[in-house]
C-alpha cells in the first residue's frame, strides 16, 4: 500500500496507526458525527434501518474473524446469534438481570456453543466444516423448541421488557439505536485491535498455511477453536442486542437463510478485512431495504406481476449480485477500493 504523498512514519507507533492523515481524521470525525446525529437528521425509518445494520454488523464482524481471517468456514452464525439472544432473554425474563450482565453472558454462551463446533475444525476443513456448522443451526432450532417451556418458552419464545439502566429505559427507536451504536463501535474497535495484535496474525497464519503456523509455534488447534469462540461471541452479543431491540425471542428468527446472507455480506465487502465486513453489511442491508421500498412501487405500477413475483425477482437480483462478486471481484469491494486509491496516489505511473 502506498501512503498519500508526504506521509511518512517516523516511529513504529506511527507506522501502525489506523488513521494517518489529517484528512482521514476529518472524514472519520464527520462519519462519527453523522452516526451520532442520525436520529435528529433523519428521524423515523432511517434510525430503524441503522439499528438493524448495527446489529447485523456485529454478527458479520464475528463471522469475518472466524471465516475471513482465520479461514474456518462457518454457516451457523445465525444459530450462534440465537443462542446469545435466548441466553440474554432467559436471564432478563426469569432472573431480571441488567442488560449490562445479560449481553456479555449472552455473548459467552454463544461463544461456548460455537467453540464446541469449532472443535470439529481440527479434523475437517472447507466444505465438510461448513456442513458441520449447518448442523449447529438445526441443533439450535430443535433444542429451543424442545427444551422445557419454563426455560425458553418453546414455540412461544420469550417476551422481554426493554433494557433498563437505572430509571432510563431503552424503549424507543432512538434510545435503542444509541445502545446498538455503542456496542457496534466497541466491537468494531475490538476487532481492529485483535487483527493487528498477536491473535490476529496467528489467525491469518492458520488460514494461509496451518503447517507452517504449527512449525513456528502457533498452536493451530487452540487458534481454530479460539476463532470460533470469538466469532460466536460477536454473534451472541448481536443476538442479545436483537432480543432487546425486538423484545421478543423466537427460534424462527435465526435461520440458516440469515447465516447464508452473512456470508454473502463478507464476499461483497471483502474477506479478511474488518472494513470489508462493514462495507458488505451496509451495502447488502441497504439493498435489502431498497427492495422493501421499491418492491411495492413496482407492484403498484404493474399490478399484473403480483407482489410475490416482484419480491422473488428482487431477491434473485441480490443473489445474482453475490455471484457477480464471486466471479469478478472475489476479494470484495474493499479490494477494489484499495486499487482505486492506489492508482490515484501513484498517478500518472501505472505501478
Amino acid at each position, binding site marked *: *500500500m502506498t501512503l498519500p504523498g508526504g506521509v511518512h512514519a517516523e516511529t*513504529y*507507533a506511527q*507506522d*501502525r496507526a489506523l488513521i494517518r492523515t489529517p484528512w482521514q481524521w476529518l472524514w472519520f470525525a464527520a462519519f462519527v458525527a453523522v452516526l451520532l446525529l442520525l436520529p435528529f437528521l433523519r428521524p423515523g425509518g432511517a434510525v430503524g434501518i441503522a439499528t438493524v445494520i448495527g446489529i447485523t454488523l456485529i454478527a458479520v464482524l464475528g463471522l469475518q474473524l472466524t471465516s475471513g481471517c482465520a479461514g474456518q468456514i462457518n454457516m451457523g452464525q445465525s444459530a450462534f446469534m440465537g443462542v446469545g439472544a435466548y441466553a440474554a432473554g432467559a436471564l432478563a425474563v426469569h432472573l431480571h438481570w441488567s442488560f449490562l450482565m445479560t449481553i456479555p453472558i449472552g455473548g459467552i454462551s454463544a461463544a461456548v456453543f460455537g467453540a464446541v463446533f469449532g472443535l470439529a475444525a481440527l479434523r475437517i476443513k472447507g466444505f465438510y466444516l461448513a456442513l458441520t456448522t449447518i448442523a449447529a443451526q438445526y441443533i439450535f432450532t430443535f433444542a429451543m423448541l424442545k427444551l422445557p417451556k419454563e426455560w425458553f418458552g418453546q414455540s412461544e419464545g420469550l417476551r422481554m421488557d426493554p433494557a433498563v439502566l437505572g430509571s432510563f429505559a431503552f424503549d424507543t427507536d432512538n434510545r435503542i439505536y444509541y445502545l446498538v451504536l455503542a456496542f457496534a463501535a466497541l466491537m468494531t*474497535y*475490538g*476487532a*481492529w*485491535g*485483535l487483527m*493487528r*495484535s*498477536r*491473535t*490476529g*496474525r*496467528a489467525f*491469518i*497464519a492458520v*488460514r*494461509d*498455511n496451518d*503447517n*507452517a*503456523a*504449527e*512449525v*513456528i*509455534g*502457533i*498452536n*493451530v488447534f487452540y487458534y481454530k477453536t*479460539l476463532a470460533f469462540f*470469538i466469532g460466536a461471541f460477536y454473534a451472541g452479543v448481536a443476538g442479545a442486542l436483537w432480543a432487546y431491540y425486538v423484545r421478543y425471542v423466537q427460534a424462527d428468527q435465526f435461520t440458516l437463510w440469515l447465516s447464508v446472507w452473512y456470508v454473502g455480506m463478507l464476499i461483497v465487502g471483502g474477506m*479478511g478485512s474488518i472494513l470489508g465486513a462493514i462495507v458488505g453489511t451496509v451495502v447488502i442491508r441497504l439493498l435489502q431495504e431498497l427492495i422493501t421500498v421499491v418492491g411495492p412501487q413496482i407492484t403498484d405500477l404493474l399490478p399484473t406481476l403480483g407482489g410475490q413475483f416482484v419480491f422473488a425477482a428482487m431477491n434473485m437480483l441480490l443473489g445474482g449480485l453475490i455471484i457477480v462478486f464471486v466471479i469478478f471481484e472475489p476479494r470484495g469491494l474493499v479490494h477494489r477500493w484499495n486499487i482505486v486509491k492506489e492508482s490515484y496516489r501513484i498517478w500518472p505511473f501505472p505501478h
Partner: protein
Amino acid sequence: MPDVAAVSESAAMPARSAAPIIRVDGITLRFGGVTALADVSFEIGASEIHAIIGPNGAGKSCTLNCLNGFNLPQQGRLFLREQEITGFAPHRIARLGVGRTFQGLQLFAGLSVVDNLLTGRHLHMKTGALEGFIYRGWAHAEELRERRRVEEIIDFLEIKNIRHKLVGSLSYGLRKRVDLGRALAMDPKVLLMDEPMAGMNLEEKEDIVRFVIDIREALDIPIVIVEHDMHVVMDIADRITVLDWGHVIARGNPQAIKSDPTVIKAYLGAEVRR
C-alpha cells in the same frame, strides 16, 4: 538477532562443546508398507553446520519432519539437549527452540513481510485475545517492542525496502529470505533448513550461503541443512550425513564423503570397485 553484524565482524569461531544439541537415536518411520527411514541415527553438535544429503526419496525431508514433530517414528527416540521430544506436537517442539525453513514457498501470503516475521515472534509474545481486543497499553507496547526486534532481522537480511509488501507479491528469492527471517525471529536454538537453495540462481544462492554462515557465527547455533547443490554442501558443511532409501550410508566431513564409494554408488549408480 542481537548484533549480527558486530559478532560476525569479529569472526570469532564459536567454541565447540561436546554435548550434542540434537540426538536422533535409531528412528524408523513407515508409511503403510513403505519404510521411509530405517534405524537412522545421528548427532548434531553445538554450532556445526550439518548437511543431510541423498538422492530423491532418500528420507531427508522425513528426517526433518520427525525432528519437527510432523511425523511420529514407529521406533527410536529424538532428543533436544538431553530432553526427549519424541511424540511432541510441532508447536511444542518449536517452543523448545527448533526453527525451520521450508522447501518451496510456505509463507503466510496474506501478511506483509513485517507481519510474517512477527508471526515468528509469536512464541515470545504474550498478548492474548482480550488484550488484543482492548489494544491499549500492554498490547501496543509489546507490538512496538517486537517490531524493533523484527527490524533487526530485516536489517540483517537486507529486505528493508520491501517490509510492507505482501509476501505474495515478492520474487521467489526474496520470499525464501523472508522464510529464513521468520525462522530467525523465533530465536531458535537450532535451525533446520529444507532445501533453502532449490530453484535459485547463483546470486540468490550466494546470498543464502552468506546468511547461513553469518547466522552460525552470530548466534552460535547448529544449522541442519538439507540440500541438493553439492558445491554448496561441500563448501559450507562441517559434517555430512548421507541417506539412501531411508538408511544412513555414510557420515563424515566433506572430504571423506566426496571419496566414499557407497556415496558415489548411491548418487551415480556406479559399481563399487572392490
